[in-house]
């Protein structure tokens, strides 16, 4: 019998805690496949965040460090500078990366730390129960924006790829989604590129993944996928914002 699909070797057998319909599990699988395909499994060290992915360190078969909220890029810097042969990734959500950890992500890019950042943008604080995130859309209801995000009070959503593209040290910035098979394939390609860059010492690479959160959006899974397409993508267009690793 020929095996045509199986769990990546770089993922553990631990059942994931993510909610039904959540995008995290898909992204974890894409990371596992990438490590297997690039043959870097023995060199990967992951940095898990505070947020929904706080248990991500249980799901990857590689060594992992889990630290403080928003500090992933700083922790990854310490790991990478101490183990230059390691392939280090920081896995972060939108509150983690774009709010409390804004300084850390910006300066990791400024220094062009040779790390890979996976940024899960679902426009909400998931783990804490649906509070407004820096990426929450205008008008989107959250538990701390009960009347919907009002730009006069809470400002506008922040587009991280576009912002980080202004920084010379950013070498690869892509925004992808995992709402349908085609986009999952494109997400895989971007993630793989972001790790190939690290292998080739290109410098700071980040992939932003638009991810669905049916639980905190109070939506069915099909409704959540539709929200990603019709509400998030207009604010957060998919694409490659910077690619200086190709040269």
């Amino acid at each position, binding site marked *: 019998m020929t095996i045509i699909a199986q769990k990546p070797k770089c993922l*553990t057998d631990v059942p994931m805690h993510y909610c039904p319909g959540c995008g995290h599990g898909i992204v974890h699988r894409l990371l596992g496949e990438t490590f297997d395909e690039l043959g870097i499994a*023995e*060199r*990967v*060290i992951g*940095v*898990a965040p*505070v947020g929904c992915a*706080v*248990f991500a*360190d*249980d799901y990857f*078969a*590689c*060594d*992992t*460090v*889990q*630290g*403080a909220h928003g*500090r992933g890029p*700083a*922790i*990854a*810097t*310490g*790991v*990478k*500078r*101490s*183990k230059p*042969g*390691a392939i280090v990734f920081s896995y972060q959500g939108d509150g983690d990366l774009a709010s409390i950890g804004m*300084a*850390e992500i*910006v*300066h990791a890019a*400024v*220094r062009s730390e040779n790390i890979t950042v996976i940024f899960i943008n679902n426009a909400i604080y998931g783990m804490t129960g649906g509070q407004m995130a820096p990426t929450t859309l205008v008008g989107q209801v959250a538990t701390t924006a009960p009347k919907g995000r009002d730009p006069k009070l809470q400002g506008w959503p922040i587009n991280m790829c576009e912002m980080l593209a202004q920084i010379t040290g950013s070498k690869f910035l892509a925004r992808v989604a995992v709402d349908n098979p085609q986009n999952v394939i494109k997400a895989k390609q971007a993630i793989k590129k972001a790790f190939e860059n690290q292998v080739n010492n290109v410098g700071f690479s980040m992939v932003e993944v638009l991810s669905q959160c049916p639980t905190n959006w109070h939506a069915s899974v099909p409704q959540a996928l539709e929200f990603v397409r019709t509400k998030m993508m207009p604010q957060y267009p998919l694409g490659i914002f910077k690619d200086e690793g190709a040269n």
Partner: protein
Amino acid sequence: MSEKALRKGNEALAEGAIRAGIRFFAGYPITPQNEVPEYMSAHLADNGGAFVQAESEVAAINMVYGAAATGTRSMTSSSSPGVSLKQEGITYLASADLPCLIVNVMRGGPGLGSISGAQGDYFQATRGGGNGDYHILVLAPNSVEELGNFPKLGIELAEKYRMPCMILADGILGQMMESMSFNFEPVDPNKLGKFSWAVDINKQGRGKSKVFSYKGDNLIADVTERAKRYGLIEKTETRYEERNCENCDVLLVAYGLSSRACLEALSLAKEQGLNVGLFRPITLWPFPSQRLAELSKRAKAVLVVEQSLGQLVQDVKLAVGNNIPVGLNAYPAGGQPDGQQILTAARSLLTGKKDGLFDLQEHAANFTYNCERDLSLGVQGDRKGGK
């Protein structure tokens, strides 16, 4: 061993850290410790290490968290307001059982305070400035010699017990120059064994290592296990220096720079017919309570000399109990102790006088205070401002 040389405190500390095998340093500029990151930026890379000037104190301590997780001897240094910012990272380091070296070259506080040397961070260092039940090891040097030699002691203790170690110095120690030598051969960190707990690459089937701070359902077991280490440390790792402690009338207790002024007091005391001794805690946590309690049974009084407003004195009172009177000679917020003033306070303790002794209630005895809202200034209600 090295030749004796005249060195500045902060530079001796930095060189001592490199000789102790520190190979990762992250820091942020703040007076009066800037010579430490400057020295590291010039010399760490040449010794096979990595220096990062971090975007913030918060980032610096978290870089240390990442580097320490790999088993690399790692360090950050700062001064009081910067160490406040590091507290998040310190409690995470404690929770993840990571060894590292943290240096606080103390300055005046609270807040931005002043850039003068001070000792106002005793509570923060010994009580844990971050959240949760934890301790860190705290070493208090009182000379450039100790500043240069404590990094090795500190990182070795930190690794032995898997916890952060702080070197609590101050701006004067950091800035002053003294003749000193390193009392150990430089450590080659490449020859140190690996830690089973550290994250690593190419592990050849040694199994997964996880360094993490969220303990969830295992938190009670985690914290109570760590408490056993704390108990062992209190029993075996206290360090202190004694001068004329066993037959004195007044036992001075001071650490760091304050203890240097006490040495002056000791020499003046002989001329003035006073019998004074000095007990200097070198480890502030674990505090050498047991030895201090023994010594307090032989003296007539204890005088605590500190450059803060009654912090060290609390640990001394816990140790001494009601055996004998405990007085406080305080020089808060950048004040500098003076041998003669110390002796004045010591004499007061023996004669029932108050000169040189600080007591908070007496300090505030005839003090009245009023800071109320004033309607004659207008009302707070109008939030729009202007017209």
